[in-house]
């Protein structure tokens, strides 16, 4: 019995990328459906009536929403290949803790850099870099946040790297200068096909962010 997997997504979305990476890690075939977020499809509204957001994974007709929840779902259903969460409950709790913290902070920190100017932007850049430094501390000398293996926290974080060029460009700063270990980690992740095939090209992300800045009247 073949699984039917549909992903409602939006190419520049960091949250969508997480799901693409997870699906690729598990070697799963699925149908990708690009959504128009300014003219939402009846299917999207039906599958995610509460938030009306992407990504939505539809597995054999049943929807799963919220990227971190979708990634855990994928990990639980297809548990025999490339496990993303570790086996030990304490390690799992640590992974969930960091994924939760990244979820709560990083998107807004990055977005604020691209939507502000001058002194306010300087403050945002500082907050952003401090957060990345905290993550660098958590990474330590491990190749991945998951240890020897690419795991749940890596999946949660890596998609943000597709936006780094945009943040650096609109913020006029270098992330690598302050967080070299983290940039080394992003390069290591990009060596994985699941990651390189799932993340949108940084130039395209940059152009998307430029469009959003015009839309919000920042330019």
């Amino acid at each position, binding site marked *: 019995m073949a699984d039917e997997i549909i992903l409602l997504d939006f190419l520049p979305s960091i949250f969508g990328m997480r799901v693409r990476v997870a699906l690729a890690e598990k070697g799963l075939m699925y149908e990708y459906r690009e959504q128009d977020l300014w003219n939402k499809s009846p299917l999207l509204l039906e599958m995610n009536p509460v938030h009306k957001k992407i990504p939505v994974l539809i*597995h054999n007709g049943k929807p799963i929403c919220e990227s971190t*929840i979708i990634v855990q779902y994928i990990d639980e259903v297809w548990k025999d290949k490339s496990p993303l969460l570790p086996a030990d409950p*304490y390690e799992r709790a*640590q992974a969930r*803790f960091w994924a939760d913290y990244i979820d709560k902070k990083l998107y807004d920190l990055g977005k604020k850099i691209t939507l502000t100017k001058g002194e306010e932007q300087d403050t945002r850049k500082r907050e952003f870099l401090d957060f990345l430094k905290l993550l660098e501390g958590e990474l330590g000398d491990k190749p991945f946040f998951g240890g020897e293996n690419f795991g749940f926290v890596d999946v949660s974080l890596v998609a943000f790297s597709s936006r780094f060029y945009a943040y650096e460009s609109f913020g006029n700063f270098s992330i690598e200068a302050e967080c070299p270990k983290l940039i080394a980690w992003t390069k290591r992740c990009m060596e994985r096909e699941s990651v390189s095939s799932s993340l949108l090209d940084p130039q395209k992300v940059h152009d998307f962010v430029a469009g959003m800045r015009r839309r919000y009247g920042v330019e």
Partner: protein
Amino acid sequence: MGEEVKLFRTWSSPFALRIVWALRIKAIEYETVFEDISNKSPSLLQCNPVHGKVPVLLHNGRPIAESLVILEYIDEAWKQAPLLPVDPHERAMARFWAKFGDDKVLGSIWSVFIKQGKEQEEAMVPAMENLKFLEEELKGKKFFGGDTIGFVDLALGWLANLIGLLEEIVGLKVVDGEKLPLLSAWMQEFGDAPIIKDNWPARDRMILKFQALRDATIAAASK
């Protein structure tokens, strides 16, 4: 086999209560460390260096922070009386509703509570929309977890106590038994369940605390 379980909490934190309930449901013995948020202990700061918040669970010396993360940990470390369902899709839905509670419901209820007049009326709109989703989710069920209390009930459990308190303080009905009959019934059922009922924080203390919070927030907003 000595299991050492310690819970860092405050007397009023609704997030910490989730953990108290989970530990009681699983009949896990534990020690409580009450924290004063204005004067956090070195132990707490050592156990939760990232956020410095409660609740923190210490299991055999190892700390776990963030209440929903702690709930999942408890469910995995102690298999009796499972909180999350077995089926992956149902688990995903449980996580979804718990997250919805924290990300949307809490904030929208709080907005109603800390505002007044026209602003409060406007804040009621998203709050009611959110509560209606919960009402829908309860169709055909006694608890969010089905026949028994589960993960989502613990995550949303704060509603069963706090709504009544906030309604009394602002003099506004938020969960109307006619408009939200299932949610109303759930608040009663959950709130009166033996393990839950015994652990609500002192009502008069809560009224004082939240009245003061509302007054302070309104005063700050009008400056």
